[in-house]
C-alpha cells in the first residue's frame, strides 16, 4: 500500500475510534475493504472495534455524502410523519470528506438535507481516485487478482503475470480535472492541503463544444447508447434525493421507460439539468456506471456554463446561496428576446 494512504488509513482509524469511544459520534461513515481488488465498500462503523475495518485508498470512489441524510435519520428516534420533529441534540455522525464530498455536504446543508451540527467532518485532501475501468482497459480486459498501490504507481497481478501502471494515468477524469481537491468544510483536516489544481478543467467539455451540432448529437447518442437505466448514476449522486424521481413519475409521465434514444437521453439530460449549479463533479455517477458511460460530461458542461454565466461553483460556501435560488439583475440572460425587451425597458 502507498505510504500516504497507509498513513491516512491509520489516522482515520485512530480518529474514528476516538470519536466513537468518546461517544461524540454514534456512527462513523467511511470505507471498508472490498471483496475484489480495486474495490471498497462504504461502511458505517458503530463501535471502536468496527473502526479498525476502515480503509483509505485510491478506490474510494463512492461519494459518502450520499449516505449522510439517511444515516442521520436512522439515528433519530422513530416517529410517524405527523409527529413533530425531535427537539434537543441528536446523535452525530463522523464522516470523511474530500474536496468534492465536502462541497456536497455544503449543498446538503443549503438544501436542508443534513444538519451541520450533527456532523463531525474529517477532511481528507484528495490525491485523486483511480478509475477501475481505465485499469481494465489498460490491461485489455485481463482480470486483476491483486492490486497494490504506491504513491505514484499501481502494481497489478493476474494470471497473466504482473503489470505496473502510472497511478495518475488511471486516475478518474473528474479527479484529473479537479480544482478543489481540498475540503471546504471540515472539523479536522487529516492531511496537509493538496496543491493540485487542474489547469484546463473543462478541456473534455471544450472538445465536445467544438463539434458541430450534428457531430455533437451523434456523440450524445453514441455515448449513452449502452445505458441500461439501472439508475446507478442517479442513486450514487448525493444531489438525487427526490422521493419520486421524474423518471419514476407517472402523473405526468415525463419520460418513457424504454431503452431507446429519446427516453434514455431525456433521462440523462434532465438529470444533469437538475444538478445544475449543485454538482461538485465528484464523479460518483461515472464511477458507479456498470456500462462505463461518461455520465459526468453532461453535468460538467453545466458546471462550466454556470461558472461562466454566474461565476458560481457549487458548495464552496454555505453562506453563498446556490445560483438557481437567487435572481440578480446582473445575471446574464442571453436567451432574452430582443423584440420583447426594447431598450428603454431594461431598467
Amino acid at each position, binding site marked *: 500500500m502507498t505510504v500516504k494512504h497507509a498513513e491516512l488509513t491509520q489516522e482515520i482509524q485512530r480518529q474514528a475510534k476516538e470519536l466513537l469511544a468518546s461517544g461524540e459520534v454514534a456512527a462513523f461513515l467511511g470505507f471498508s475493504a472490498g471483496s475484489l481488488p480495486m474495490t471498497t465498500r462504504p461502511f458505517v462503523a458503530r463501535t471502536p472495534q468496527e473502526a479498525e475495518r476502515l480503509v483509505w485508498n485510491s478506490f474510494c470512489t463512492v461519494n459518502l455524502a450520499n449516505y449522510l441524510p439517511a444515516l442521520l435519520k436512522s439515528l433519530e428516534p422513530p416517529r410517524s*410523519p*405527523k*409527529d*413533530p*420533529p425531535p427537539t434537543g441534540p441528536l446523535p452525530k455522525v463522523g464522516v470523511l470528506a474530500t474536496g468534492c464530498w465536502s462541497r456536497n455536504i455544503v449543498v446538503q446543508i*443549503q*438544501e*436542508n*438535507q443534513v444538519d451541520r451540527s450533527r456532523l463531525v467532518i474529517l477532511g481528507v485532501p484528495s490525491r485523486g481516485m483511480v478509475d477501475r475501468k481505465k485499469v481494465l482497459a489498460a490491461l485489455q480486459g485481463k482480470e486483476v487478482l491483486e492490486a497494490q498501490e504506491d504513491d505514484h504507481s499501481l502494481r497489478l497481478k493476474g494470471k497473466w503475470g504482473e503489470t505496473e501502471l502510472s497511478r495518475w494515468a488511471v486516475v478518474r477524469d473528474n479527479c484529473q480535472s479537479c480544482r478543489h481537491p481540498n475540503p471546504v468544510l471540515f472539523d479536522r483536516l487529516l492531511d496537509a492541503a493538496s496543491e493540485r489544481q487542474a489547469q484546463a478543467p473543462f478541456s473534455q467539455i471544450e472538445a465536445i463544444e467544438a463539434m458541430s451540432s450534428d457531430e455533437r448529437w451523434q456523440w450524445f447518442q453514441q455515448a449513452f447508447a449502452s445505458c441500461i437505466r439501472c439508475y446507478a448514476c442517479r442513486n450514487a449522486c448525493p444531489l438525487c*434525493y*427526490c*422521493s*419520486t424521481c*421524474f423518471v419514476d*413519475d407517472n*402523473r*405526468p*409521465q*415525463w419520460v418513457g421507460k424504454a431503452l431507446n434514444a429519446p427516453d434514455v437521453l431525456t433521462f440523462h439530460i434532465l438529470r444533469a439539468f*437538475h444538478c445544475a449549479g449543485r454538482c461538485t463533479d465528484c464523479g460518483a455517477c461515472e464511477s458507479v456506471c456498470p456500462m462505463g458511460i461518461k455520465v459526468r460530461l453532461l453535468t460538467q458542461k453545466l458546471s462550466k456554463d454556470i461558472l461562466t454565466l454566474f461565476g458560481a461553483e457549487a458548495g464552496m460556501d454555505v453562506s453563498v*446561496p*446556490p445560483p*438557481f*435560488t*437567487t*435572481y440578480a439583475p446582473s445575471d446574464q440572460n442571453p436567451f432574452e428576446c430582443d423584440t420583447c425587451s*426594447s*431598450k*428603454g*425597458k431594461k*431598467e
Partner: protein
Amino acid sequence: MNNTKGSVLVIGGGITGVQTALDLADSGFYVYLVERTAAIGGVMSQLDKTFPTNDCSACILSPKLVECGRHLNIQLLTLSELVSLKGEPGNFRAVIRENPRYVDANKCIACGMCAEKCPKVVPNEFNNGLGTRKAAYLKFPQAVPLKYAIDAKHCIWLNKPGRCGACAKACPAGAINFDDKPKEHILEVGAVALALGFETYDPSLLDFTGYGRLKNVVTSLEFERLLSPSGPCLGHMERPSDHAIPKRIAWLQCVGSRDINRACNAYCSSVCCMYAIKQAVIAKEHAAGHLDATIFYMDMRTHGKDFEKYYERAKASGISFIRSRVHSVWPAGQAVHTQKGFEYGHDLLVRYSDEDGHLHEETFDLVVLSVGMQLSASARGLLSKLDIPLNSHGFVPFSSFSPNSTSKPGIFICGPVSDPKDIPQSVTEASSVAAEISALLSSSRWQTTKTKEFPPERDITAEPPRIGVFVCHCGINIASVVNVKEVAEYARTLPGVVFVQDNLFTCSQDTIVNMVATIRREGLNRVVVASCTPRTHEPLFQETLREAGLNPYLFEMANIRDQDSWVHQNEPEKATQKAKDLVRMAIAKVRGDQPLSANVVPVHKRALVIGGGVTGMVAALSLADQGFPVDLVEKAEGLGGNARRLYRTWQGEEVAEMLQSLIDRTTNHANITLHSSTTLERTSGSVGRFKTTLSNGKEIEHGVAILAVGGQPWRPSGEWQYLYGEEERVKTLLEVDELCMADENVKATGRSPLLSQLNHVVFIHCVGSRIPERPYCSRVCCTHAIDQALKLKELNPRMNIYMLYRDIRTYGQREILYQEARAKGIVFIRYDLNNRPTLTKDGDTLCIGAMDHVLKRPLVIHPDMVVLASAVEPRRDAGELSKFFKCSINAEGFLMEAHAKLRPVDFATDGVFLAGLCHYPKPLEESIAQAKAAAVRAVRVLAQDVVPAESAVAVVNPAKCVTCGVCAKICPYSAISKDPVLQKASVDASLCKGCGACVASCRSDAITLKNMGNEQIMAAIEAAMCNCGG
C-alpha cells in the same frame, strides 16, 4: 335621513376620467361616465408607445377601458354632453344629453359590416385626419363600448333620407336605427369630477412651421398615429406625402408653448420634451436604426422619474439634440413649375441658428412639431357653463394645498385641465379626485351601487368532462383568415367535447346570454372559448360560467386571433390548422381543470400610514375623512417633515399656515392614532390583513399601508460641496427658505435686515442632480430657486442675481416665473458638466468662476451669498421599510411603483401604496395629490369586507417534497414556509399570487399550480405535438 347621493358624475372618458370612475366605483359609489365621442380612451388610446417604459399605450390602456366598460357600477354615456348642473355638494342634479348613435348598442355585434358597406369615406379624426374612415365607423379597434356609430354629419341617409341605407341592409343584427333621437338623462349625483383632458395646439397658426402647407410637417400626435400599428400606415412610419419611410426626422420643440410672441402660450407644456425623445427612440427602432433623429429644443425638460436616464440613453443612441429655436421650415430643393403651379420636392429644409448665433440649414424627410397642450373649446364651454373661471393661461386655477378643488364646492378637476401634465400625474390626480369625492360622500358609500348575484355552483366533481367549445369569428378578425366552421367541426371530434358552436362575436351580449343557456341545457362542465386574448376577455367568460352555475375556473381560452389570424394573415390554411392545434390544446388542458375555491381574505378595516410629513398627513386625513381609522407613524418627534422648512409654493402660497392647520387636524382627528418618535419593527401578512409591530411595542392589524416616508435634501459634498458647511455664506435653498420665513417674521415688525441687504447672489443649479451617481433631475429646484430669486428681488430690486443652470425646468405654468425672472433682470448663465462653476475664496471674498455661454468668456462673480440648489434624495431607511412590505426600490433608492404610467401610487405588492418624495422629488401640490390618490387606492381595499386572493395558487404534494427549501427562497411573496410538523414546504394561499416561480424551481415536482398542473401542461403539449386527425 341621509340626503347625500352615492352617485358621481365623471365628465371625460380619457384615462383620467376612466381612472376616477374606476376608483370611485370600487370604493362604493355609482359612477356615470360621460364621454363626448363614441368611445372612451381619450388621447392615450391614440398614442403608440409611452415613455419612459416604452410600453404599448393601447396594451396598457385597454384593460382599464374594458374594466370600465364591464364595471357593474359604472354607466358609460358616450356621445353625451352635460346640459346643465344644479345643486350643491352631496346633491346635484345633472342633465345629460346623449346624442344618437344611430346604431342600437344592444344589438350591434361589432362585425364591421356597416362600415364595410358604407360608401361615404371621411377623414379619420382618430388618426388626426391622416387616413380615412367611413360614416359608419368604430372609433378604434379596441373601442369601449365596442359598438359602431354613424356619423350624422357625413351619413348619406341622415342627410338625404332614402339615398343610401347600405349599412342597414348589411347589418346582420338589425342594429342600424336611422330614427335614433337624442336622449336626456337626469342624474342625481353627489359630486362631479371634470376630467376634460386637453387638445393639442393647432400649429397652422404658426406660419414658420409650414404646417398645413407642407405635407411632411406633422404634429406629434399625428406622428404617434404614423407609428401606431393601428394607425393609417399600420405602424410602418410612412411620411404623408409619398409614403416613403423617412430617414431624417426633425422634432421642433415648444410649438405653441413657451411662446408669448406668436402662440400667446407662455406656459411650458411639460410633456413634449419626453414625448419627442420617445418618438425619436421609437422611430429609430422602426427604421432599424437607419434614422437620423434631431431634436431642436430650448431646455430639455426631463424632470420626471426615470426621464433623465431615458434622455441620456437617447443621446447615447445617437439622437441629436440641438439647442436652438428653429427659424423656419421650407421645402427643400428647387421648385418645379408645373401646370398646377409651383411644386416642391417632398423633403424639408430646416433653418435654425445655433447657440453662437450661426445660421444653419439642414434637410429632413419629415418634421414633427412638438405641439403643446391647451384646453379644448368644448372644455372651455363646459367650464363657463359651470361658471368656473379660467386663469390668464386658459387653465382652471388651483390651490397647491387642494389641487383638485374648484371654486365650486363638489366639483373637482383632474388632469391637464389645471396645468399641462403627463399621464402618471393625471392618473394620480384622477385618484386624488376620487379620494376627495369619496370623503365628501362617505356617508352614502355602497348606497347606490349594485351587486351581482350568481346562482349556486353546480358540483361537477364526479362528472366526466362535458366540454363545450365556442369558436369566435371575431367579426372578420378571425374569420377572414381562419376557416372557423372547419375549426368548429374539428373540435366536435375531440374527446370529451359534447357541444360546439361558432359565433360572430362570442363576447356580444346576446351570445353571452345564449352561452349561459347552452351550458345549462347541455350540462356542460368545462368550457373552451376560441377567440381573442384572455387578458381582456377571460373575466367576461368566467363570469358567464358563474352565471350558468359553473365554477369560473373550468374554463380555457384558445387565442386564435392575436396568436393566429393576426399573425398569419397570408397563410389562411396554415392559420386554420394552427387554430385547430390551439383548440385541441385548450381542450386537452380544460379536461384537467378543477373547480377552484374563490380565495378571499377578510379585510381589517384600518390603515397604516408611515411618515408624518405633509404627504403622510394628507393621506392619513384623507383616509380618516373617508371614514377609516388610521395609524400614523412618524420617526421624528413632531409632524411636518420637510415642509417645515418650506417658505412658499411657486404660486406664492405660504406653507407655514397650511402646515399648522394640517398638523392640528391630524392631531385632533378622531380616526387618527398618532405614533410619533416611532419606527417599524416588523410586518407580516398581506393585503387585507397586515400585522405590524412598532418600536413602541404596539402591534397594529391593518388592511393596507401607505408609505410616505419622504425624501431629504442632499448635503452637498465632494466636487459639489462649494464650501458648503465651511462657509456660512453658502446656503441651500431650504436654508434660504428658513431665512425668508424668519424674514417674514421680521417684516411683521417692519424691517428686513438680512436678505434685503445682499447685493450679489448666485444660485448654482443641479448641485448633485443629473450626475452619474444621482442620474435624475430633482424636479423642484429650478422653480424653487427662481421663486426664491424673485423673493430676493422683491426684498431688494437692485440685488444682482445670477443663476448658473444646466437646463431650466420650470414646467407647466411655472414657466411664468422664469419669464418674470428674466424680465426682472436675473442673469441666467448656462453651464455644462465639462464646465462646472467654481467657488473659491480670495481672503474673505467669495469668487464664483463660470463660463459665459453666450459670450464664451470666463466670468467671475463675487457674491454675498451662494445658494446651492441641491438634490432631493430618498431616505436611506426607505429601502429597509420597503422590504417589510416586499416592495422594491429603484437604483437611486426611490420606491418603485407598480407601473410608472398607470399605477403611479400602487406597489406591486397588493395593499401597499406610496406617495410623496419617497417616490420621486416633487412639489407640494403633487405630493398632496399623490397622498390623496394613495388614500383612495387604499380605500378601494378598505371599503370591501373581503379582498379576493388568487385562486390558482401553488399547492405542495408533501409526498414528493424533499424540503430542500428552494421554493421558499425563490418565492417573491414569501408565501412558502416549512410546515413545522410535517417538515415540508407549505403555501400560504392568501399570500400566493400564482406566479409559478416555485413550480419551476422545484426539481422534485412537489409543487404545482392549481389548474396549471404538470399533467395538464403535458396534456396540452401532447395535444400540440400529436396532430391527431386535424
